[in-house]
């Protein structure tokens, strides 16, 4: 199994009604990050999804590089007209990012996938399933 396969397989992007759910379960390295962004944006276009949830429950560490990839992906989705919500950030990850001085404004977040879906529902009531 090549590395590219390994990573492709490991960021599954599921469709839940009008929402896409991307679950990050591996360490985001450079190659994975770019692939992840491409996959997500292409699937938004293909499916016409109006919401994107990026689930990072599995990440026990988010450095400034990974944080930037996540925030950029959210912004790209938003430019396409899709609300993006980051869900499942662990307490110690949140604490670390804020202490580093990472600019957190403008990032939509929710506790978990359920909460994220509900938030999207409130943001885009017309589109919710």
């Amino acid at each position: 199994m090549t590395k590219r396969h390994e990573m492709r397989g490991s960021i599954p992007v599921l469709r839940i009604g009008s929402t896409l759910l991307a679950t990050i379960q591996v360490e985001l390295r450079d190659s994975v990050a770019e692939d992840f962004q491409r996959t997500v944006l292409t699937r938004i276009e293909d499916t016409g999804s109006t919401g994107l949830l990026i689930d990072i429950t599995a990440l026990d560490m988010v450095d400034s590089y990974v944080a930037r990839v996540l925030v950029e992906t959210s912004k790209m989705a938003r430019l396409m007209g899709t609300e993006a919500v980051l869900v499942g950030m662990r307490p110690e990850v949140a604490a670390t990012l804020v202490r580093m001085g990472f600019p957190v404004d403008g990032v939509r977040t929710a506790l978990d996938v359920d909460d994220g879906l509900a938030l999207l529902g409130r943001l885009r009531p017309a589109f919710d399933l």
Partner: protein
Amino acid sequence: MALSSPVHIRSSQEMAIESEDDVLQVRREVRVLAERLGFNPFATAAVTTATSELARNIWCHAGRGMVQIEVIDEEGRSGLRLVFRDQGPGIPDIERVLVGGYSTARSLGLGLSGSRRLVDEFNLQSQPGQGTVVTVVKWGRL
């Protein structure tokens, strides 16, 4: 590298940093050690994240280098001392990078300033053309 107090070095190892894989490897090793020392999840995340930033800097800005990882004891507490060394281009304006927000890459420039806020002791030495040495210490919280 003014870490004045007398410390006892319990263990010491070196790891090369020459690829992104090495960056991941190094930060996994640091996480394992932090957990073994009983760091709480917040301290563990802090030192692992700082490691990731500093190791990635070597890989991105110097190409190659190494880290020396030490488990140290001082006055009844234990911690990790990490020394990141490279012979890359060095950092011309140390003050500026330590304030944060300055980057020569397409990133946020939070690696050095952010790491510094995550650890208990931070020392950066760099000479343009001579390379860079960053030493950090993180003590376990009770």
